[in-house]
């Protein structure tokens, strides 16, 4: 420490940018190692609102660091901001996934234990899980975290599709795994219905909120399953042949509607 410090005139010139290069450079070099002078400069700050900036900074650090899933997406070649957009969906938060897994495990267990009712239960639950997860992955109500991420206009279609693919990549293996526990061909028969429902939710979300669409689709499916279960016959029958072709057609038609009406994806516009 040299005992030399910025005097008041120098400080005023420095803050007011009214000094010469040499004087400014001297002041800056001194400030790097002199806390008392830094404190005096801090007290003279007029260029920005430091309190407001602190709030912003604190908010910024409370955004979670890239999750493992986000890093996987980035490794797969997705730009960082898109990986964040995709991964920030509530659907990828551990609790949510764990809840979905628990429901599925319960259904698969019921089916594995053996009687027809258990298989019906699995058939009722498994096909609607992917569409519910997809819907929650881009429903603004489920996902307030979307808002600060969307500070710039972003192609909603691209976001929805990216998230849908990411959700399916996560949800389908889980559902498939549980399906292995279920006896018979039921284990895989639900795949096409699941894809069909996801497409229906995508299409319906151009009119309604994604979550409402998914809940409506799920309720409709549960009603159908309940009706079929009330009648005699094998649970597998309805999921084979013509029925499967029907689900495929449903998926294709819904996806075409979704693409045609993609501009109606209101929920994904930036909020400010």
């Amino acid at each position, binding site marked *: 420490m040299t005992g030399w410090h910025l005097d008041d005139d120098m400080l005023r010139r420095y803050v007011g*940018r009214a*000094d010469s290069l*040499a*004087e400014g*450079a001297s002041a800056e070099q001194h400030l790097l190692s002199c806390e008392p002078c830094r404190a005096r400069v801090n007290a003279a700050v007029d260029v920005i609102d*430091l309190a407001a900036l*602190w709030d912003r900074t604190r908010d910024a650090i409370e955004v979670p660091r890239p999750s493992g899933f986000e890093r996987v997406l980035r490794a797969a070649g997705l730009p960082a901001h898109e990986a964040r957009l995709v991964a920030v969906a509530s659907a990828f938060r551990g609790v949510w996934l764990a809840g979905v897994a628990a429901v599925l495990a319960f259904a698969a267990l019921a089916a594995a234990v053996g009687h027809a009712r258990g298989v019906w239960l699995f058939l009722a639950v498994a096909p609607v899980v992917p569409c519910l997860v997809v819907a929650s992955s881009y429903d603004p109500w489920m996902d307030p975290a979307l808002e600060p991420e969307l500070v710039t206009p972003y192609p909603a279609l691209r976001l929805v599709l990216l998230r849908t693919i990411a959700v399916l990549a996560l949800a389908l293996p889980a559902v498939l795994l549980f399906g292995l526990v279920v006896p018979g061909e039921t284990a895989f028969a639900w795949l096409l219905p699941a894809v069909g429902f996801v497409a229906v939710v995508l299409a319906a979300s151009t009119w309604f909120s994604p979550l409402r669409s998914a809940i409506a689709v799920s309720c409709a499916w549960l009603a159908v399953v309940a009706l079929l279960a009330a009648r005699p016959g094998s649970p597998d029958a309805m999921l084979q042949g013509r029925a499967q072709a029907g689900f495929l057609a449903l998926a294709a038609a819904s996806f075409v509607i979704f693409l045609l009406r993609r501009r109606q994806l209101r929920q994904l516009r930036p909020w400010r």
Partner: protein
Amino acid sequence: MDSRPGDATLLLAVAERDMGAFRTLYERHAGWLAIRLARRCNDRDLVADAVQDTFVVVWQRPRGFRGDGDVAAWLWGIAIRRLVSRLRTRGGVAAVFEDAGAAPAAEDQVLLSVEYGDIGQALGRLSPEMRAVIQAVVLDGLSAREAAQLLNVPVSSVKTRLYRAKAYLRAALAEGPS
């Protein structure tokens, strides 16, 4: 000496996710960093963004400070590079250098030895563009590429101006006191 924790101690606490220590660091450093950045960029929003980025980096990588030198110098190194990075992503927003210190009145001359010496006078006669380059490269320690992004000029211009400024200063000093 007062018993307040030093900046390096605070950084260790920040590494332990201590928000209070982080807040103290912010209060000690955000102000002068903002002032110093504002001397290099007239866009206050960009300056605020750069200060915010700096503290986000501090929060995320407090161990980036390796314990040598001043924490303030480490922070400045981050801050000026965050500003350069912000300028690059905004694109087109140039850092405008005001020619503030062009002609200080004689009675305002500071009692700084360098001001009375040859270097001070020689620096004062540099054009604003050359001074900006000297400031960015020599004083702030930026690379030619970083300086070019900060000043929104081609890298080749930075190199040319730096070369000319050095040649000029060398000549001015070789001539002796004027």
